[in-house]
């Protein structure tokens, strides 16, 4: 079949969800719920089909030409100035990386849309939900298909907006609104770094004579930045790629919930569960990973930036996992697990094993979406209860939910032959074998953290499974009666996702396990920075040893969970009593929220107060002083007017009056008086003449 027409029709992919937004947004209120849900889901499905066509066309191309662009129009054009020409087209680009991302996003989105029809059926804002969800898919596709950093940023902000809108979806509850605002503000902090990084890249490349922001052109000219360094106050000279890379990663820590900006993600669980599944687990939060993959040519120039990514993210993976151990809210456990898994993906990126990061991103999208949808199904049955201490024994009542949830759990902890096993193992072995010329211990450190985290993950995931599905049901009686399996429209997506949670791993089976690592092969043309790197020696024996070590640790994790939550339910209590301080530290999430509250928020409050004081006393003071001065001046001016100007006028009048009054005495009306005067003057004149 001739597929090359897709070269000019890439815009179809984001167009469909946009159409969904328009149709449902404007006419949804008078349509039936079934129609609204169908339109929204079908639009995403069409988008998936278009992506699939593009994918088929892409793999029909020879490997080195697997990139095509659809330009819609010129978006920004500066004309020819002295500095050079700057032009950004509004264009979409499709290459293996975009393909993997777009396929994952549209496919998972479609399933979640279908699931949402059932989940949101009784909600009165049913239409609004689907409009937001479509808008999110649209923004996400702009993000992954945009061919310039600027267009990526547009999508980046778009998904942030949708995330905010959907977290605060039930806006009657103040808590949800606050969570939305928190997500928005924390993301803004990250976006600040991203923007600075983007500007810096633009400026530094521009100084070398290349004004551009499109990926292909940056990739072509990025070598120009190799020896450029930037002088920072207090720190000194920093290599430009390092600084830009760290700033872009800063943006990624916001969007992809890494230390120090991960705090918004657990709170984001305030939104409807399909949102948590789609946005805060499967797609949006992975955009930071995608961005680093997209900019890999830049990170290839800076081992330091990569090391920073690896270290920070491995710490995130570890700390988030430890927090997840102590949470009782099922969605919170999954949220911290997401933060932790995102840390894994970044470890993959940070050790320059980009394929493994993207691979884990993809498998994670399936199994984490499944976990969230499963928890949504549980919530649906439990009348929106999320506390695992009130659950238990759901295994028999909700068999489909239980089995799919179990499959996803097995996938996330890395059980052999499940998808998570291949991707996580890929990351760990890549980290173990990686070299970093700037900070040599970084990859090993990342590997060690990831290794420990694997065990913790196994523990907390099985803890969740055991508390939710095994043992006696601890829910109140009236809720107990209602527990039922969810309708097929919700369980079918669960089953499909469960299938993919198992088989998605087989696209990237490493060579050491007898696979061909198709995904790595497919994505390799994108990782231009790896072209010049020689394949490093990977000892099979070491790799197998690592695998067995990890699996042992995972097994121990599962056994501890089994021991503590099935066999000896009183055991956790004992541990808690033995290490009360550690437990409290973990339970309260290392007090990070409190620390942020005490520093940034309180600082902001403080600053606000100071500024308010400044405003009230200085600014208002100046204004009031100006007013007062005006009044004073007017008073003086009035005084001058009244007494000087009017005074002169009055004086003149008065002079005339006075002279008149003086002179009128002469004219007394007595004839003889006149005669006296006349004669007197005559005598005077005579006298003067004589003298």
């Amino acid at each position, binding site marked *: 079949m001739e597929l090359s027409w897709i070269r000019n029709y890439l815009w179809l992919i984001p167009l469909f969800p946009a159409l969904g937004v328009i149709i449902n947004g404007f006419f949804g209120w008078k349509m039936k719920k079934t129609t609204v849900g169908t339109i929204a889901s079908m639009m995403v499905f069409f988008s998936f089909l278009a992506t699939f066509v593009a994918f088929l066309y892409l793999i029909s191309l020879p490997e080195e030409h697997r990139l095509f662009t659809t330009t819609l129009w010129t978006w920004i054009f500066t004309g020819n100035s002295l500095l050079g020409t700057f032009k950004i087209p509004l264009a979409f680009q499709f290459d293996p990386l975009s393909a993997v991302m777009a396929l994952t996003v549209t496919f998972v989105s479609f399933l979640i849309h279908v699931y949402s029809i059932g989940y949101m059926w009784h909600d009165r804002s049913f239409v609004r939900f689907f409009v937001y969800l479509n808008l999110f898919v649209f923004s996400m596709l702009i993000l992954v298909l945009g061919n310039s950093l600027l267009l990526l940023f547009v999508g980046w902000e778009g998904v942030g907006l949708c995330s905010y809108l959907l977290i605060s979806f039930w806006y009657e509850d103040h808590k949800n609104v606050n969570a939305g605002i928190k997500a928005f503000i924390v993301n803004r902090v990250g976006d600040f770094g991203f923007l600075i990084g983007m500007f810096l890249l633009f400026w530094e490349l521009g100084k070398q004579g290349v004004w551009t922001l499109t990926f292909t052109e940056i990739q072509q000219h990025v070598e120009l930045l190799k020896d450029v360094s930037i002088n920072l106050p207090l720190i000194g000279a920093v290599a430009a790629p390092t600084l830009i890379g760290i700033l872009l990663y800063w943006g990624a820590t916001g969007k992809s919930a890494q230390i120090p900006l991960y705090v918004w993600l657990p709170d984001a669980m305030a939104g409807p569960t399909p949102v948590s599944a789609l946005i805060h687990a499967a797609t949006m939060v992975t955009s930071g990973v995608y961005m680093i993959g997209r900019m890999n040519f830049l990170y290839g120039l800076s081992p330091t930036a990569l090391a920073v990514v690896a270290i920070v993210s491995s710490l995130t993976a570890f700390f988030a996992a430890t927090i997840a151990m102590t949470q009782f809210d099922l969605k919170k456990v999954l949220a911290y697990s997401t933060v932790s898994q995102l840390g894994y993906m970044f470890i993959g990126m940070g050790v320059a094993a980009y394929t493994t990061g993207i691979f884990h991103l993809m498998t994670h999208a399936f199994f984490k979406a499944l976990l969230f949808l499963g928890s949504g199904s549980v919530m649906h049955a439990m009348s929106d209860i999320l506390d695992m201490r009130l659950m238990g024994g759901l295994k028999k009542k909700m068999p489909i939910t239980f089995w799919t949830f179990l499959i996803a759990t097995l996938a996330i902890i890395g059980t052999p032959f499940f998808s998570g096993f291949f991707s996580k193992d890929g990351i760990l072995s890549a980290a173990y074998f990686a070299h970093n010329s700037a900070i040599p211990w970084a990859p090993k450190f990342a590997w060690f953290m990831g290794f420990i985290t694997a065990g913790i993950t196994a523990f907390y995931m099985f803890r969740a499974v055991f508390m939710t599905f095994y043992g006696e049901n601890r829910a109140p009686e009236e809720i107990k009666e209602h527990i039922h399996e969810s309708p097929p429209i919700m369980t079918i997506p669960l089953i499909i996702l469960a299938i993919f949670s198992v088989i998605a791993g087989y696209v990237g089976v490493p060579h050491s396990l007898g696979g061909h690592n198709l995904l790595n092969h497919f994505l390799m043309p994108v990782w231009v920075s790896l072209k010049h790197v020689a394949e490093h020696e990977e000892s099979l024996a070491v790799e197998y040893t690592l695998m067995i070590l990890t699996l042992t640790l995972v097994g121990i994790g599962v056994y501890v969970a089994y021991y503590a939550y099935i066999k000896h339910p009183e055991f956790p209590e004992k541990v808690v009593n033995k290490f009360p301080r550690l437990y409290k530290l973990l339970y309260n999430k290392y007090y990070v929220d409190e620390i942020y509250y005490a520093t940034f928020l309180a600082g902001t409050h403080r600053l606000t107060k100071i500024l308010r004081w400044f405003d009230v006393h200085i600014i208002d003071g100046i204004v009031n002083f100006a007013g007062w001065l005006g009044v004073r001046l007017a008073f003086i001016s009035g005084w001058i007017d009244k007494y000087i100007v009017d005074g002169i006028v009055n004086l003149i009048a008065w002079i005339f009056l006075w002279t008149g009054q003086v002179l009128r005495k002469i004219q007394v*009306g*007595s*004839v*003889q008086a006149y*005669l006296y005067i006349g*004669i007197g003057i005559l005598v005077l004149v005579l006298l003067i003449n004589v003298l």
Partner: protein
Amino acid sequence: MINLQSFLVVGMILFLLGIFGILTRKNAIALLMGIELMLNGVALTFAAFDRFIKPAEMVNPIDGKVFVIFIIILAAAEAAIALAIIIQVFGRYEDINLEDLKRMKE
């Protein structure tokens, strides 16, 4: 012998008597009489200068006489008007005291 000085002295006495009259008398008629005395004193002076001084350079030798005639006519006209005014004042105030004329401004 009657010469120019004699006439001038008589004229001056008449003039000063007239002034004395108008300055001291409150009666309007007496005032009018003083004015007549002053006018006649001046007229006498003009006539005396005309009779005694004939300088060669004087172009018109009858200037003094003309002035005298004008003064007599003027005095006659003045007396007529002044008497008319006095009669009107008397009609209004039943008095011809000059001080009473101040009341006209009221």
